[in-house]
């Protein structure tokens, strides 16, 4: 019995399609993680657009600057770095897809990212399963490196940041009764709220009221009205700048003039744009770096950053820079890009970066000093440094 011609043609077409799909699956360029020649391919996932775009943009510029300089100096092991950057639009779920693409198609040597802890937590397990090291420039939630020994970071963690905020509130601001307003939808915010509350209460402080909001909320008047009624002396808002800007603005509109403070999630020029100068009086946040710190590394970094991007770098840019340098140092030390050797070298990271001495501890975190910033006349102003 003969097969009808149309069916034959159809199965031939199906075969062609299957073949082309298979062909598309083959690695295209980039080489593999264990290649010994050609460029060292690094995958960076960042929030280049969306609600935390300021973080991703800053961090990316720092990383780009670092790799540019490293390549100018001839790269490492005689091989240049090739940086692949993908945007997760500040959305949950995107980072996992991007990192899987980096690992399976681009065969990257290492993954860099992210600023927001929630999104680093998405990518961490994927890198861990593949054994490919991931370096987060500035995710501060402790859970990020608890994923496993393939996840590293070059910044301090929230237990330290929370403790220093508690101390700053008690000693410098002299407030003893505070309100906490945190974001239930962000791992960073939930964590930092807890790490602030514990030492603050242990030190004799009192939490008058603790309320929640969710990322992408716009109306905070209800929570702020309740906070006003509870009569605290200060408000701790451990969130990200888009919501924090609106919170500060609405708090001042409701006549709450008490100090408002938070962590490194505040750091973005959009904070000033959204809240406005006047509302930001009497607000403070802790972060990793200030461009006016006096060290040769900082001076050199600020000058080259300004020459390239015509703006003053912030902490996210500095940590983005340091994350790239940490990777380069590790590749140099390991003498290869093999994942096992690279992970071992990264675990032993110890260099003086832009954000200070970066020496990883057993948990692959980098305890280092923090700075407190306030806003004055529409500009971020360095207030003090706090050692770990």
């Amino acid at each position, binding site marked *: 019995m003969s097969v009808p011609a149309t069916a034959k043609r159809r199965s031939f077409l199906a075969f062609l399609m299957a073949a082309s799909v298979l062909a598309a699956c083959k690695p295209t360029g980039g080489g593999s993680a264990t290649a010994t020649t050609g460029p060292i391919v690094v995958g960076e996932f960042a929030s280049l657009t969306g609600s935390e775009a300021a973080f991703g943009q800053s961090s990316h510029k720092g990383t780009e600057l670092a790799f540019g300089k490293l390549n100018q100096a001839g790269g490492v092991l005689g091989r240049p770095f090739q940086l692949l950057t993908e945007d997760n639009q500040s959305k949950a779920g995107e980072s996992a897809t991007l990192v899987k693409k980096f690992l399976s198609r681009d065969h990257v040597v290492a993954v860099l990212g992210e600023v927001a802890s929630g999104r680093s937590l998405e990518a961490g397990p994927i890198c861990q399963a593949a054994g490919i090291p991931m370096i987060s420039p500035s995710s501060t939630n402790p859970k990020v490196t608890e994923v496993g020994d393939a996840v590293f970071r070059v910044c301090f963690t929230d237990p330290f940041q929370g403790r220093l905020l508690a101390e700053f509130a008690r000693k410098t601001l002299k407030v003893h009764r505070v309100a906490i307003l945190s974001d239930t939808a962000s791992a960073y915010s939930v964590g930092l709220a807890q790490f602030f509350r514990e030492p603050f209460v242990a030190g004799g402080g009192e939490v008058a*009221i603790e*309320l929640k909001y969710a990322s992408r909320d*716009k109306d905070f008047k*209800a929570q702020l009205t*309740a906070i006003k009624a509870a009569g605290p002396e200060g408000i701790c808002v451990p969130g990200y700048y*888009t919501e924090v800007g*609106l919170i500060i603005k609405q708090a001042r509109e409701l006549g709450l003039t008490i100090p408002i403070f938070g962590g490194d999630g505040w750091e973005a020029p959009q904070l000033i744009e*959204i809240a406005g100068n006047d509302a930001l009086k009497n607000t403070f946040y802790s972060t990793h770096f200030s461009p006016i710190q006096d060290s040769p590394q900082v001076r050199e970094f600020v000058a080259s950053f300004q020459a390239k991007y015509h703006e003053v770098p912030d902490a996210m840019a500095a940590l983005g820079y340091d994350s790239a340098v940490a990777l380069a140092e590790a590749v140099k030390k390991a003498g290869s890009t093999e994942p096992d050797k690279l992970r071992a070298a990264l675990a032993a990271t110890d260099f003086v970066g832009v954000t200070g001495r970066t020496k990883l501890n057993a948990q692959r975190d980098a305890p280092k000093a923090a700075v407190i910033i306030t806003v004055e006349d529409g500009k971020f102003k360095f207030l003090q440094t706090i050692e770990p």
Partner: protein
Amino acid sequence: MSEFLQQLLNGVSLGAIYALIALGYTMVYGVLRFINFAHSDVFMVGSFAAFYAAPHLGSGTFLGGLAILTVAMVACALLGVVIERFAYRPLRGRSTLTVLITAIGVSLLLQNVGQKVFGVTPRAFPAVFPARIFHLGSVVLNTNQLVVFAVAVVLLGALHLVVHHTRVGTAMRAVSFNATAASLVGIDNDRIISFTFALGSALAGAGGVLYALNYPSIDPLMGTLPGLKAFVAAVLGGIGNLAGAALGGLVIGLVETFVSGTRLSTYRDAIAFAILIGILLFRPAGLMGRARVEKV
């Protein structure tokens, strides 16, 4: 007591915005019997239209503010007519499900084109109306909240006049009641439906401007959440019923505000939606809706 009054005020001003958006959902449903899910994105386009018009139209003065509001409403009305003409009209007479899925498609289209055209980064919305803050005892009142309330009341009144006291409104109600019979007595159904979309979308545009005025950070995905709440408000009030939509908006705004101000703030949306389910269990047609008997 003053906390209660302040929360009441917060809730009413939030509810007024939900009410404005809910009116658009309910009007289209009333005439066409389908939920226009692209409505919340027309709302977003409204605030961006105002954002781009603001520097050219005397932002910050009362008259300038009204001009910007008008521009946004007209832009949205046009957008609504275009959407209806090219996405919904070709499907007239098909099953409601087909149109509903098309509406979701239009919504995604607007969101993604918006991300490309407007950028994904949130923008700071300018103060288009002159803002002042009044202290009435310990209650703080922002003039922007007054503007929201005033505009919502005026538009609701105007809508009532149009629907119940004009020829085109009578035609709208006729089409809603029985489209075939309406066309038999000489009503141009397509024109009336276009008009309904223009009116509903203009309201969404106004809602977009007022929302951005109070919460001055706008982005292409900003419509999703308020759109969903307004949809809930429309269903809660009895979808297809104008006064019901306004009432539903107020209820949702007040519930959200009072829950947010307590220790249950984490469960705000859960409680708001649980109330919706509760009300619909006892009044399936919504607070002010009348149950219809479907003839089979």
